[in-house]
């Protein structure tokens, strides 16, 4: 049994201790508050077979990095394929082929060397220097949303930090980048949920069918946007992808381009929205962290560090899949070929052998970049600089403009999305007021 408790160990606050026993990551209580489970795994059985999930959970930092640094033995492509629409894949694929223009495999989840060809193209779009030029525009979008949120919250009205703020924020930013001028944020949110549910492992058949239909809508929307740019390119990322010339002189196939635009729409908003939801949660529940942010609001260096520590302590992506291509040994555990692994980034970020007192929010860590919230290796998050920028501006503008940020419900009632892939708040009821 694993329990959450705020006990002390060597002077550090910890998430709790317990025995692993038959505990499973699929347990909703563990999905909501996983740190004690992660801790038990790291101590007792670091590469642990979760029978209910049918996957090996990789919990220690060093083993996580070993996996991520060896994309040949630990295949992203095969791990992803086995995770995708798990249990219903053929039916899922058929729906997309019939109603959604086709089934387009995610080229970003390929293995090297095929992956390298496409990755080089995307690297250029998201350099830290290019993203820095976007800061004024992103700031305008965020300030507008904060002002709207403050208006909505006037007179102690409850607002939703996730659905009224974090989600529309990241959707507005990525749509501007992609060049999608007219969009229905609610719809894009539904599409995002439908896509990410395919790697979440918690959908039943009815949900799969509903999600597949939503992904069909998404693909038909994307294909329309792409077609309108085939003849007349514009100054936006969809045009860039439709007309891209790769380093080897090739172009993207139509299927590759659809999968990339789809990946940009979804990955470009979903995990960053989760991070901004987590930011609000932390600010509402940890006054010392809110104070720290207030003191750092005009200090660019400390703001950057604040964002990095937030990503370490509350990483949006909790676990992504890999598959062994050969028999191997990981962290002392013998693994057969085709072993399906869930790499627990969130547990790596919480590993006390790497991060002193990992449950402490400490932006002054000397090794702050060591966290694996963005992964590491060839599949490291390509949009990291954009995500950091959005979170930084949101943090800075929120703390400057908003006061008395509080949860509107008891913390125990907060719900998380049912998925092993991310740690995402379903909603975050808040009260707040304008800072005077």
């Amino acid at each position: 049994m694993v329990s959450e408790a705020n006990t002390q160990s060597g002077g550090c606050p910890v998430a709790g201790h317990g025995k692993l026993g038959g505990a499973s990551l699929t347990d909703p209580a563990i999905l909501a508050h996983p740190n004690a489970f992660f801790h038990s795994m790291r101590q007792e059985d670091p590469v642990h077979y979760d029978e209910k999930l049918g996957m090996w959970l990789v919990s220690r930092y060093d083993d996580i990095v070993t996996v991520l640094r060896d994309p040949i033995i630990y295949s992203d492509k095969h791990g992803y394929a086995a995770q995708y629409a798990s249990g219903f894949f053929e039916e899922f694929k058929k729906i997309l082929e019939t109603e959604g223009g086709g089934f387009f495999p995610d080229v970003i989840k390929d293995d090297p060397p095929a992956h390298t060809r496409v990755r080089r193209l995307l690297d250029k779009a998201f350099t830290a220097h290019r993203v820095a030029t976007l800061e004024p525009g992103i700031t305008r979008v965020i300030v507008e949303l904060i002002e709207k949120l403050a208006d909505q919250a006037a007179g102690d009205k409850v607002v939703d930090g996730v659905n009224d703020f974090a989600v529309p924020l990241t959707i507005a930013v990525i749509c501007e980048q992609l060049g999608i001028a007219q969009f229905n944020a609610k719809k894009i949110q539904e599409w995002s949920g439908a896509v990410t549910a395919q790697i979440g492992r918690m959908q039943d058949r009815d949900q799969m069918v509903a999600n597949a239909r939503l992904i069909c809508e998404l693909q038909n929307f994307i294909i329309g946007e792409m077609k309108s740019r085939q003849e007349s390119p514009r100054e936006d990322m969809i045009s860039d992808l439709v007309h891209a010339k790769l380093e080897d002189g090739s172009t993207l196939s139509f299927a590759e381009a659809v999968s990339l635009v789809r990946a940009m729409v979804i990955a470009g908003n979903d995990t960053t929205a989760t991070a901004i939801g987590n930011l609000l949660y932390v600010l509402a529940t940890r006054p010392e962290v809110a104070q720290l942010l207030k003191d750092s609001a005009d200090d660019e260096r400390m703001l950057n560090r604040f964002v990095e520590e937030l990503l370490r302590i509350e990483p949006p992506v909790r676990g992504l899949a890999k598959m062994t291509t050969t028999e191997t040994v990981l962290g002392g555990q013998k693994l057969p070929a085709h072993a399906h692994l869930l790499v627990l980034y969130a547990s790596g970020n919480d590993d006390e052998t790497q991060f002193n007192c990992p449950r402490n929010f400490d932006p002054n860590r000397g090794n702050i970049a060591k966290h694996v919230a963005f992964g590491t290796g060839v599949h490291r998050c390509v949009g990291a600089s954009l995500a950091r920028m959005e979170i930084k501006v949101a943090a800075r503008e929120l703390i400057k403009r908003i006061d008395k940020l509080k949860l509107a419900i008891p913390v125990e009632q907060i719900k998380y999305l049912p998925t092993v892939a991310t740690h995402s708040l379903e909603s975050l009821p808040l009260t707040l007021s304008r800072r005077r």
Partner: protein
Amino acid sequence: MSGLKVTFVQDDGVEKVIEDATPGQSLMEIGRFHGVAGIVGDCGGGCACATCHVYVDEKWQAVIGKPDDIEAATLDMVSEICRDNSRLCCQIQMRKELDGLRLVVAPNL
């Protein structure tokens, strides 16, 4: 011979001497292509990951120059191993004036 010379001193002490570096390539690309241990370049040269961190030999510091604000911010994330002569070598393009350059690869964080 038109190639330029650059030496990477790996953390294990092994010196990798590259004699066919092409102007215009970044030093990260050059190091990664030649399998220099510790030059990883996960972000592909986007100045976002600090996995191409090097220390610049004193006599080369003036010609190489200092990191800009964005690079300095990324270097700050690895402050434990950051020094005054730290650079992310994805941000340095090989050029004629750097022929003979010597860089020490920073250790793993």
